[in-house]
């Protein structure tokens, strides 16, 4: 993994606390993705890096409220999704910058955690904060790029 947990925590704090004024407190890693949504971006460079942000509906709505400076009751579902995706975009963009290599950042997307496969898991980093008394988790997974996998499969077949 090309970043460490401290760097990931700092990036997340910069995005959520410095810019949005959210209070974050690091807590032990929360691996329970039940009733959570995930916003993600991918960094395509030497490797494929997936950056995922997990939160439940309550927390996502409150984060959106902070971003829009509005009671989240006044926000549409689309507004709330947009705000959560932008959090993933900012965290992913800063992680990409910390890699120091040429790479492409995909547009953010949002879905259920089960939409994301655990395919080809090489390496991962996981950190959790408490925000509005609910867990906010960030997971960074590095995977081989497709062409690297094809080469590995071919090499395995030959051997």
């Amino acid at each position, binding site marked *: 993994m090309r970043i460490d947990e401290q760097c990931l925590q700092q990036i997340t704090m910069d995005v959520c606390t410095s*810019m949005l004024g959210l209070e974050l407190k690091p807590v032990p890693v929360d691996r329970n993705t039940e009733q959570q949504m995930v916003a993600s971006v991918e960094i395509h460079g030497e490797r494929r890096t997936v950056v995922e942000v997990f939160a439940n509906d309550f927390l996502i709505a409150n984060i959106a409220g902070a971003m829009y400076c509005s009671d989240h009751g006044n926000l549409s579902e689309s507004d709330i999704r*947009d705000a959560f995706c932008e959090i993933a975009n900012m965290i992913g963009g800063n992680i990409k910058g910390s890699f*120091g290599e040429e790479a492409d950042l995909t547009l953010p997307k949002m879905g259920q955690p089960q939409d994301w496969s655990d395919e080809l898991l090489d390496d991962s980093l996981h950190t959790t904060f408490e925000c509005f008394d609910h867990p906010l988790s960030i997971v960074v997974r590095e995977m081989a790029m497709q062409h690297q996998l094809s080469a590995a499969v071919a090499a395995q077949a030959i051997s």
Partner: protein
Amino acid sequence: MKILIVDDSKAMRMIVRRSLTQAGFSNVEAIEACNGAEALDVVEQQSPDLVLSDWNMPEMKGIDLLKALRSKGRKVPLGFITSESSPEIRDQAVESGASFVIVKPFTPAAIELALRPLMV
């Protein structure tokens, strides 16, 4: 002064608007576009004095917007506000004629520092 804010995220457009006010630019008329292609049309129709653009957007990226504006002879100053913080992005932006690059997350102070020289 009319400023065009270009970002595919409505939340981010809102944050940029708010930051302009917090940075003391109270006499600004902010208009919006949600991607580069839409921004091109808005520039043609409304002639903003400054464009603040995201980098990564569907339809047309910010860097392509900048190149398209320059190829049309449009000299409106354009600065990027982007989560893309790598040196090659900054170099590409400057080489293409961007006035500045502000990295997300940003503060109103960063907005003021970048925009103030363009306000004289």
